[in-house]
């Protein structure tokens, strides 16, 4: 009996303790909520820090951003303390969970292929009220890339170009002077590089097929776009999916694999292990984004001489534009309780000095005209090949649909491994993706209007001649 009473008392004390903790949090939270928007001032006045979080999935600039966040924390006079959270490939998933658990960040790194989804999910707050006229003029407004339904949700910083990255040492050893400009040259060069390097464990070509979506999203996409086809199989002229442009690309990749010119084990290769192998000189060529120079200067210091060149096209003729991805960078969380403080941090991140540093340190290529005009060429080795050229251009936003059955990247990779009838695969993809497109137009309000005058080649040449 005594024991039971003792246990009951103990439970009650514990429960009260927990409740007390809960209450204190609630009080704090409600205080924060009621002071939303003025928190930074209140924090500064009371001597307490206003804590905000910034989530990014970028790793190539992580050290630089960490340094700049620390600098902001030390120098800002508003009592704001920013916690930087660098996520990996699980960024989108973690963000979804954070919004479901009310533990969402205040400032979010958004990209050209996430901002639309985050907007629809109501994760983002419009920033128009914070923008001065100068800022409005300085940062280009881009529909569906930073502006939705007339409201701005982000501002551009840098854009990402896509290139063929190649190992100059291995090229020299194989006696190859120029990077490939056609798919046939890509296949032949991969073969020559493998012949020259195989004894030392080096192979001509590699792709990170642990995730076919990631692998083809950085390789087949840019080849298709340079050749005049929509990078995700969508044709803006007809407003229909048509994957037939991918046929020669996937066939070339399969040929490289069948020739034995592909790094063994690409089936389970992730992008970072691929980069690590390239830095060691074990890979002759691969296709990826302009974040690579940053990677090879900090994350995996390259032991080889390397460079970047425009991606090859199907037949050597450039009929489209190499996607220049960007138009947005940081966004304000709709659930932030410290929007003013978060905006002050964003203002700091969007300062001329910061944007200039971004370009000059080689973390990205500025998409802000005033910065592009004044910033020096980046200091980072290898960035020259990624600077905008006459082929780069911003493609319209591709519609996202949910087809039944296998996704296009998985279907193409399956063909690369097992062979089969590629025409039948493409016909099946077209049928399923267009069915999903029709469904999304009919039921989800997706807008997809044909544009017979759409000319992919006209997208190019706006950032450099």
């Amino acid at each position, binding site marked *: 009996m005594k024991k039971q009473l003792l246990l009951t008392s103990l439970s009650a004390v514990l429960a009260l303790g927990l409740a007390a903790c809960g209450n204190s949090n609630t009080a704090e939270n409600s205080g924060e909520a009621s002071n939303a928007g003025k928190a930074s001032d209140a924090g500064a006045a009371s001597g307490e820090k206003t804590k905000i979080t910034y989530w990014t999935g970028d790793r190539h600039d992580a050290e630089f951003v960490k340094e700049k966040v620390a600098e902001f924390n030390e120098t800002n006079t508003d009592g704001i303390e920013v916690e930087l959270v660098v996520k990996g490939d699980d960024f989108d998933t973690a963000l979804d969970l954070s919004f479901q658990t009310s533990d969402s960040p205040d400032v979010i790194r958004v990209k050209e292929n996430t901002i639309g989804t985050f907007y629809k999910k109501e994760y983002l707050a419009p920033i128009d009220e914070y923008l001065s006229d100068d800022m409005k003029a300085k940062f280009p407004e881009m529909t569906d890339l930073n502006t939705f339904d007339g409201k701005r949700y982000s501002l551009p910083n840098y854009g990402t170009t896509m290139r063929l990255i190649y190992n100059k040492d291995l090229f020299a050893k194989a006696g190859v002077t120029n990077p490939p400009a056609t798919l046939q040259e890509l296949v032949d060069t991969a073969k020559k590089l493998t012949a020259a390097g195989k004894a030392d464990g080096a192979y001509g070509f590699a792709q990170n097929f642990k995730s076919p979506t*990631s692998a083809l999203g950085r390789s087949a996409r840019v080849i298709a776009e340079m050749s005049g086809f929509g990078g995700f199989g969508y044709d803006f002229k007809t407003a229909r999916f048509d994957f037939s442009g991918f046929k020669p690309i996937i066939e070339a990749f399969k040929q490289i694999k069948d020739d034995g010119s592909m790094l063994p084990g690409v089936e389970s290769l992730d992008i970072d292990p691929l980069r690590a192998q390239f830095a060691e000189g074990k890979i002759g060529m691969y296709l990826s984004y302009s974040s690579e120079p940053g990677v090879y200067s900090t994350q995996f210091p390259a032991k080889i001489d390397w460079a970047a060149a425009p991606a090859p096209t199907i037949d050597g003729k450039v009929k489209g534009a190499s996607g220049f991805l960007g138009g947005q960078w940081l966004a304000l969380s709709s659930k932030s309780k410290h929007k003013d403080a978060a905006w002050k941090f964003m203002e700091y991140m969007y300062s001329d000095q910061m944007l200039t540093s971004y370009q000059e340190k080689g973390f990205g290529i500025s998409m802000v005209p005033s910065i592009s005009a004044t910033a020096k060429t980046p200091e980072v080795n290898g960035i020259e090949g990624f600077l905008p050229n006459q082929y780069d251009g911003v493609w319209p936003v591709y519609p996202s649909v949910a087809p039944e059955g296998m996704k296009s990247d998985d279907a193409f990779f399956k063909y690369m491994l097992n062979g089969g009838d590629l025409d039948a695969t493409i016909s099946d993809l077209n049928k399923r993706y267009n069915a999903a497109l029709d469904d999304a137009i009919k039921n989800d309000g997706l807008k997809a209007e044909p544009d017979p005058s759409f000319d992919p080649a006209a997208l190019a040449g706006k950032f450099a001649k």
Partner: protein
Amino acid sequence: MNKSKNAAFAYSFLLPSALLTLVLGIYPIAWAFRYMFYNYKGYGTARFIGLDNFSRILRDAEFWNSVVNTFVYAGGKLLLSIPLSLLLAAILNRKIRGRQLLRAVFFMPTVISTAVMAVVFFTIFNSYNGILNQFLIKFNISSSGIDWLGPKHAMLTVILVAVWGAVGNYMLLFLAGLQNIPEDVYESSSLDGANKIQQFRFITLPMLGPVLQMVIMLAIINALKGYESIMVLTEGGPAGKTEVMFLYLYKLFFPVGGSAASTQVQEFGYGSAVAFMSAVIVGMISLIYFYASRRMNRID
């Protein structure tokens, strides 16, 4: 203390866990139950579509491929891990030197995070610079190494990793069962002339029946639901060769593939229907096993 006070006292202790179960267990299930009749992408309005998600499951070759892979994976894992853990338990139940240390060593994988374990195994098995291939090449066992995570061997590799992670746990449960078998049963059988193999066959196995039934049950459910190490090692590839049911389900909710994955759409509605179907499959297999193994629960 009268009965009603006793009951109130018991309920007060049950309340916290009941609340947690309600919030973390029942609510998500109810949520999924609702959305399996909807087309819902995680934003906007959920659209009621009746049984369309279920008819889609019936024609979803990828899902059924993942079901077949799940059976292969679970079957392989069970066939290797149960006999191996029983054997280890029988050996470590004997008075051999260092048995405590060995028990701890074999149990160690259970306390290591599955994801961390899988990353370590990735460095061992990866084809281009994996430790295992370097060993095979160095000692001329293979000239160019083996593509452990390639189309031919990926399933075997993920099964081996799963067995490594599971054996210690089941071994410990078997050990607990073995230690409950009275010593005098063995002594009297020895007097009757039974050898070690006969003792194992006619005393150990029958008396271990209830534990064996429970361990196999847990192993079946764990194997059918397992996907974490596969996610790290192969992400279900190459070309769906190691795509198991719960990994397929996970990808419907959270598409993988880094930044390019965002061109894909989250399918909360269809994912909920697949989750229900997967739960039905796991539940049915567990029930069938439970019915088929009911004799194991009796110690004659």
